């Protein structure tokens, strides 16, 4: 008998939040979708008041670029896109054991085939992109366990 459930979670890894949809089917659990939660920009710290003469455009939305934010050291298992581009090919499959530095997939960006390598040893838990898919910086590509 089919017993299929979909659960939605918000998972926090390295201080970043991700929407994760998990599907369970006959004792099997599969990750269906992982996407980055793009949180509201933090309000300006009180010690740096916005000058009264500031332009009508909301200067607070122009925050520092996300890649400059300091975060906890790696240890998370979501491999993100380092730059925007197109997935050219995927070199691993779900369940595969990978070593740190092993090729996971190739991301074509800036006219270059950028090799996305495993940041740590692990097992490929799910692959969140397909060839020809366009991705943005920080989009989740592969989930390692």
């Amino acid at each position, binding site marked *: 008998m089919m017993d299929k459930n979909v659960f939605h979670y918000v998972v926090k890894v390295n201080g970043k939040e991700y929407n994760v949809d998990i599907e369970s089917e006959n004792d099997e659990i599969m990750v269906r979708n992982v996407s980055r939660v793009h949180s509201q920009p933090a309000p300006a710290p009180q010690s740096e008041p916005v000058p009264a003469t500031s332009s009508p455009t909301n200067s607070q939305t122009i925050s520092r*670029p996300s890649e*400059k934010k*300091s975060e906890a050291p790696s240890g998370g298992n979501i491999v993100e896109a380092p730059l925007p581009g197109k997935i050219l090919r995927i070199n691993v499959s779900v369940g595969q054991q990978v070593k740190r530095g092993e090729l996971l997939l190739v991301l074509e960006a800036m006219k270059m085939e950028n090799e996305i390598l495993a940041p740590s040893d692990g097992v490929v838990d799910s692959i969140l992109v397909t060839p020809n898919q366009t991705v943005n*910086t920080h989009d989740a590509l592969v989930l390692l366990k």
Partner: protein
Amino acid sequence: MAWEDILEEYRKRKETILLGGGKEKLQKIKDSGKLTARERINYFLDENSFVEIGAFVEHRATALGMEKTKAPSDGVVTGFGTVGGRLVFVASQDFSVLGGSVGEMHAAKIARIQDMALQYKAPVIIMNDSGGARIQEGVDSLKGYGDIFYRNVKSSGVVPQISVVFGPCAGGAVYSPALMDFVFMTKNAYMFITGPKVVETVTGEKVTNEQLGGPLVHAEKAGNIHFVADSDEEALDLVRELLSYLPNSAFEKPLYMDPNDEPTRLVPELEDIIPAEPNKAFDIRKVINAVMDDGRFMEVQSDFAKSVVTGFGRLGGHVVGIVANQSSFMAGVLDIDSSDKAARFVRTCNAFNIPILTFVDTPGYMPGTGQEYGGIIRHGAKLLYAYSEAEVPKITLIVRKAFGGAYIAMGSKHLGADLVFALPSAQVAVMEAAGAANIVFKKEIESSPNPEEVRASKISEYNKEFMNPYVAASRLYVDDIVEPQFVRIALFNALELTLTKKNSVGVKHGNIPL
């Protein structure tokens, strides 16, 4: 009174000083796998070369119970000695003495060796292991920090300044390392402006010392440091190695070492390392290793802004500083961090009379809101500034891509490069073919009944005409196009020539952190 009594008094005092915070505390440091302040100096310097200065210094604080507190050497061991026979000045904070805290006299001792280093034109190495300001000494402690920072800046670009962080380094203390030319950290060290407790109180964020300011954070994300070491010994070995690439001051050239490796050695392996297809990434460090003497290359900031590689090596015995785009990381783009990293490195080389060798393979500056909002214009400008400003020999090899503003920035002829070479695989152009064709032939493509066909043919036309080194060479922007196997010879000959150009040694500029 007899000599015996005089000497007994002296030896008793000296023994107390050498024991720092006492046997127990020293043992605790050793048990944690670290070296003590004095062991670090002895390990680092040539045997029996250390001459101590200020061993008998005492603090003169009286507030908050300090009148009863003894602090041998006031918590820092200072003096001079040699490394490989060359003079250096050292200060080593002693964590066993009041947590290595910085009081008035402690700071005065460090300032003293900073002054001496300037006077005798030799590198300063400061070994940090300190809980921070000595609160009991109040503003005198702050004055002490200020004195050190001031001398860091006045020495900048005059003598090499190297900081090694072995333990805690928090609050104002972080700014002395930050002002220096090279910062090393061990796995046991951490650095931050405010510690986890204050962070939690102010922002509610919970972090550990390591997460907030451990060596990996600074090496990979913040870019505050240049080298990470597993142990105290490894850190000091690395400092000795780094010193072998640096002159003692801006008034000297770096040390020439007779090479075992023939400058005329061919490097046909470059054809295997560098893919002929411009869209295939490779590790530029393999090219650097192949070209340098004995395959040796000491990478600086290897974990930060990895789309550009910086470091030192020797070519035919002469020290060179290398700046290279790394296509295997972010396609080798110049972004905010890699521009800052390369610009600071170029200025470090210029300050210390080190010729700059540039390997170019970059698609350009990184586009997007993240970069633009972060100020890529301002940060990218630093690289143009640094290359233009540098008077040392500047030799450039265009390996593959050299596009647009990034072509200009990466040691082009136009910013004063002495000699520019290109491999036959080089592409010197305003931009890559598809983008260029879409703009230049926009009307033709759109008005055609077969736009895709026209587009493809225009792209291939552009590729054929412009994506090569020949246009630039025809204008003398590239001096010569060389086969990969002759790269080492070409670069060596260029270096021998340009080392004779009129670039007098002496102070050129400070080395402001960028």
